[in-house]
């Protein structure tokens, strides 16, 4: 057998995982987000920053298949051919949402079933895809709880009995258990205190690197963006005003709004 390419990674993943072109979403007269286009490559982490009301979450909902955009298309490469997620049937889109990508919500209550045990929460996606062996489901759930640093003894506790940070980690385990290729995170560290944020960020960084996940992270915290993301997109009033490599955007901001944003960060 002969070895061909000198860049095996590039040869394996020759195409972007997600291609977004001209996505716009309007709420009546008002703009949610307008004319957003970008490519996301496998294993890449993209950050979307901007002040509240700038259309970050709207864009995320459009990309994740929750809200149909009014214009533009979202191509997801699940197999060899890219798939327009809004032209496939709702059934197929729901299947993709449960298997090929996952959403980590800002509020764990939106992403977890609060009256189902931690094990059941993590196992749900496995059972969705047809796993019917209790012991194996439980084993996987246990493994994932430990990977997000939740003690295995808490597997039969309900999320209500967990702290906010644990709930957020549980939500991450619930999403990652089905081994998605792409994860959407909406303010994953919102509402957590700083030390818990730091541990969560560490964890996310390790998971994203280890699993080779592509991720889109919406945040208004530039420190989170700096730590986690490879590339950054700055939004204001529904438009993307600047995008580029994270360090580049944060260290050498070009747009007036980005300059304002970076200079507004408190340094302790």
């Amino acid at each position, binding site marked *: 057998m002969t070895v061909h390419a000198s860049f095996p990674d590039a040869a394996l993943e020759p195409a972007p995982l997600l291609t977004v072109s001209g996505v716009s979403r309007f709420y009546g007269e008002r703009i949610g987000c307008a004319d957003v286009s970008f490519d996301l490559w496998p294993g890449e982490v993209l950050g979307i920053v901007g002040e509240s009301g700038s259309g970050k979450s709207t864009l995320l909902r459009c990309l994740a298949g929750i809200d149909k955009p009014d214009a533009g298309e979202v191509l997801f490469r699940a197999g060899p051919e890219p798939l327009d997620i809004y032209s496939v049937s709702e059934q197929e889109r729901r299947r993709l949402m449960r298997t090929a990508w996952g959403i980590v919500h800002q509020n764990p209550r939106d992403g977890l079933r609060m009256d189902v045990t931690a094990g*059941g929460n993590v196992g*749900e996606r496995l059972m969705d895809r*047809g796993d019917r062996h209790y012991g194996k489901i*439980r084993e996987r759930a246990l493994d994932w709880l430990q990977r997000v640093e939740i003690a295995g003894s808490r597997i039969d506790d309900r999320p209500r009995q967990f702290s906010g940070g644990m709930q957020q980690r549980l939500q991450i385990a619930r999403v990652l258990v089905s081994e998605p290729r792409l994860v959407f995170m909406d303010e994953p560290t919102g509402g957590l205190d700083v030390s818990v944020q730091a541990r969560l960020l560490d964890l996310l960084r390790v998971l994203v690197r280890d699993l080779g996940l592509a991720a889109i992270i919406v945040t208004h915290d530039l420190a989170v963006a700096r730590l986690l993301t490879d590339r950054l997109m700055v939004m204001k009033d529904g438009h993307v005003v600047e995008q580029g490599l994270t360090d580049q955007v944060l260290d050498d901001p070009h747009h007036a709004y980005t300059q304002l944003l970076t200079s507004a960060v408190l340094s302790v």
Partner: protein
Amino acid sequence: MTMHQVPAEDTKPAYNYAYLDEQTKRMIRRALLKAVAVPGYQVPFGSREMPLARGWGTGGIQVTAAIIGPSDALKVIDQGADDTTNAVSIRKFFERTADARTTEATEEATIIQTRHRIPEAPLKSGQVIVYQVPMPEPLRKLEPREAETRKMHAWAEYGLMQVKLYENIARFGEVTTTYDYPVLVNGRYVTAPSPIPKFDNPKMHMSPALQLFGAGREKRIYAIPPHTSVKSLDFEDHPFRIQSWTEPCGLCGAGDSYLDEVVIDDRGARMFVCSDSHYCETRRAEGHRGAMLGDAALTGLVEETKP
């Protein structure tokens, strides 16, 4: 036509045969045909007001009214017994409105309307069993939105049902649902078998009888045609199991029937008896005697049948 017709000597009061008017019966029959064509699928129908409170079996009565004819023999059971208030009233209702022959014998009946049980005697081809269903949607307690549960049925997204079973096993070591135990009909639709004990679930599988389900308050009809697979949901390593008892029926000695626990004095004594009253009587008539039959006959609980 006047509203208040005075019936002639030889006619019944101003009710149509089997209470419902012919158009309503046609509507219900159309729903039934669709239900039989798509086993386990819940067909909406225009449920009518019946002379009986919603939740007391209006769905079952409407289905029975739509299929009954003068040549049918009707058996009605409530919790397995032929002699409970609900069963007696419904039987009387059809005696008056449909000239129906009623029977307590499972083998003789052509239509069996039931609440909470399937008779112990195996059903035969040609028999119809009509279930009264309070809650036709098995996913309702897990997903409150009707639009969402319809999508879940349409695309067979039944992971959530499995999560419920998982929760049971995680908390209690086994599936603790003992009645209305969810089943997969014909390998496609997850269906509520109505509140029959899970003991009866295996009887639904490949049954030669036609099984019809009517939910009056929820306005749904569904069906399991004869010889259709009905699988109780479970896990590979926690297979479905039915209830079992440590002692046989106190009256007839049956070890293979569903038993009710009956408290018989104020000192905590209790006995187990068949919930299917006809089955128990038949066995006693055949000469089977349970350990407590003599005591029960003395206190007037049962009439002792001489073998």
